Each structure stands twice: as structure tokens, then as C-alpha cells.
């Protein structure tokens, strides 16, 4: 498949209080961003079990984005700090085993950062588009 024809499927886990509201603001502000993203709303980035990320990749997602509140701004005070540690380790594990780094990305997007959310989605989509379809350990049906 040529790079241009490939529209990546990206699963985005967004925290309810910041990133999801940020994504909402992007929409209400009429800012355009690629339609590649499938949003899963979770209550906190600290709720995202790293196995969910692996599961998404296994089910055929080309990329995964985890987004939460900026450090210090977590609605549950410290959830995003835990998420930061976990995601750091899981991305390093994936990279070590040779899963293309860039498929799993993380960002901090607050409820007022509509334009930033659009930028993040643009960047993740471009990164994943360059990598091509995820074929590494997709579940055999």
C-alpha cells in the first residue's frame, strides 16, 4: 500500500477531565484534524492498564495514543504520575522487542488546549502513516 493511501487506525485513550474535554474543545472550535483517531474515554490516564495498549495493537490498531492531564493537574491528584511511569516502561519494552517505536505515544492535553490536541493527532497520524500498517503481532483471525 502506498504511503498516501494508507489511513492509519489510531486508538486514543483520553482522560475524562482534561484530554477528552480538550478534544471536545478542538471540535467546538472547528479545528480540523485527521479522522484517523478512535477515542476511548477513560476516567483517568492512571486507569489505562498497559495491557489495554498491547491489546489495541494486537486487535489491529496501527497506533495508540494515551493522553491525560498535565502533571499536577490530575483530577485524582496523582493518577497521571502513575500512568507516566507505566507508559514509559511499556514503550521501552515495545521498542526493545522491535515493535516500531512511535506506534505508542503519550501526551498531556488540558481542557483548554484544543489546538494542541489537533497538533498531537496530526503528529501521531503522520508518524504512524510513515510506519505503515501494523503487522507485527496482530491477532490471527
Amino acid at each position, binding site marked *: 500500500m502506498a504511503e498516501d493511501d494508507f489511513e492509519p487506525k489510531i486508538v486514543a485513550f483520553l482522560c475524562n477531565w482534561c484530554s477528552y474535554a480538550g478534544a471536545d474543545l478542538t471540535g467546538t472550535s472547528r479545528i480540523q484534524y485527521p479522522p484517523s483517531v478512535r477515542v476511548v474515554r477513560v476516567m483517568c490516564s492512571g486507569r489505562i492498564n*498497559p495491557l489495554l495498549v498491547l*491489546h489495541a495493537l494486537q486487535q489491529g490498531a496501527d497506533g495508540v495514543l494515551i493522553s491525560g492531564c498535565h*502533571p*499536577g493537574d490530575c483530577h485524582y491528584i496523582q493518577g497521571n504520575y502513575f500512568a507516566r511511569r507505566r507508559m514509559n516502561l511499556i514503550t521501552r519494552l515495545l521498542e526493545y522487542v522491535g515493535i516500531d517505536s512511535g506506534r505508542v505515544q503519550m*501526551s498531556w492535553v488540558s481542557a483548554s488546549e484544543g489546538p494542541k490536541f489537533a497538533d498531537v493527532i496530526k503528529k501521531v497520524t503522520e508518524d504512524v502513516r510513515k510506519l505503515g500498517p501494523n503487522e507485527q*503481532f496482530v491477532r490471527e483471525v
Partner: protein
Amino acid sequence: MDEEKMRDTVRDLLSTGKVASVIGYEKGELGQGARPCIITSPDDADRLILTPMCKHNLTVYLTLEPPTDPEKKKVALIVKGCDARALIQVLQERGVERDDLVILGVPCTGMIEPDKLYQEVIEDDILEISEDGDTFIIKTRDGEQTLKKEDVLFDECLTCTYPTPLMADVMLGEPVEPRGGEASDPTEGMSAEERWAFWSDKFSKCIRCFACRQACPLCFCEVCAGDSLKPNWVKRSVNLSENTMWHFIRAFHHAGRCAECGACERACPVGIPLMTLNKRMAREAEDIFGYSSGTDPEAKPLLGSFKTDDEEDFIQ
């Protein structure tokens, strides 16, 4: 390794009723091999051995089958350096109660990898193995043979950082200095594609017997993510996708916990280099978070704690 002191201590512990059972090693049925055993009578103390063939990590028996009878909860356990690290980690996670344990620490100079030994000497010919500095003296039917330790020890033992148990009620022997070797990584210098080729080849051999999990003293979850049906992280079919998922789960769940004893790799029937993955994750935990597992029973678990200034270069 002080065999006599160990037997005396065990005899004393059992006869005074300080513990209900002792987990140790006895001579295996064949050759010079050792096997784990659990004794409950002071008369059996003479059965126990301590040789360079005692490779098993006995900490696993504390969590594999914990005694249900409260009268039998008190257990004495023989631990080497790496086993003690695993035990400390289990204590940190409240897998066992410290008060229920009597820890007999063995400063360890390394364990012999049987496969390496039997390449040098015929298994059935060996009469006795003794240690002398940096060599093993193997008494065989035809005479004596001297083998360098670095040729026959497990790879984990050659790079061991904690040969002397960090926690023990009774220390059986003098402290041992770590060898200080650096573990080699077969994927060193490989590109991402080459690494995936390497690991997917290894993972595709996996038959998902879960021997790695059963051998691991730290795999004591009541329901393993590998078994869980709801959510069904790993499907039952054995193929590269599900195997890879299992190995990711295993490696990730041991990040910042692994005691680097090598039990998983020894248990693996298809020879997947699990310790390479484990060591990599341990190194990451140390590099990024300055966290070394199994050193402090009061420390907080790596992923159950955080610092506000943790690394976040990877976050947009």
C-alpha cells in the same frame, strides 16, 4: 557453604518447634543433582545438602503452595543471594509474612549449569564435586578433573550482583564478593527490524506451558493475566500473536520486580532467553527510576509509586 552448620541449625529449629517445616535441598536420584525437599522432622536434617548443584529458587514454594494449616505456617527457608532478593520482593508485596519465616542465608559462589558441566564430564562418572577458589574439582571414576568456574556456572551467576543474601536470620558462611560481570545481550547493536526478527523467532517457539510462570517466585497473582478469561488478554491458541502478548505481559509484570535468579529461563523447555528480557527491564527501571528490585522490604513497588520529576521526555 556450610553444610554442617545448616544441618545443626535446621535440627535445632525443628526440634524446638520454632518452625513446622524446612524447605531445603536434598540429593537427587541421579548423579550429583540436587532437588528441593520439604522436611518436618529433625531426624531428616541429615538429608539436606548444600552443593553447587542447588540451583532451584526455593522462595517459589512459599507462594506456590502456602500452608493452609495455621499451626504449620512457620517455615524455615534456605536462600541464596538471588533467592533472598526474590524473597525480599515477595515480602515487599506482602506475599508472605516476615514473622512466619526463618531465613537461612547462603552466601553463594555460583551454581553449576548441568548442561555445561556434562559437556566436560560424563554425568554418570562424577563421584564428587568440590570447590577450590575459582575452580571446581570434579572427582570422577577415572581420576580428577579441574574446571574453571566461568566455564560451568550459569550465566546469571557470572553476572550476579547480590551473591550474599541481603536478608537472613542465620547466615551460613562468610559474605561473598560479587563477580561484577556485565550481562551480554544478544540483541546488542541490532536495528529494530533485526530485534523483532530475533524476538518473533523466539516467541514463535513458545508452547505456552507457563513453566516460566510456575518457576517464578514472584508470579503469585491469584489470577494470572495469562489465564484470565474476563478480560481475555491472551487467547488459548498458540501462535505468534498470542505468544508475543504473553511474553509482553510477563516481561512487563516483572519490570522492577525480577530478582534475576534465572528460574524462568531454566524452566523454559524451548529455550527462550527470558532473562535477557528481564534484565533489560531491570536495567530500564534502574536507569530511568533509579530503582533496584528486591533490596528493601520496606520500599514501595516501582509501579505503585512515583516521583513528581520522573522522566517525561517521551511525552508530547
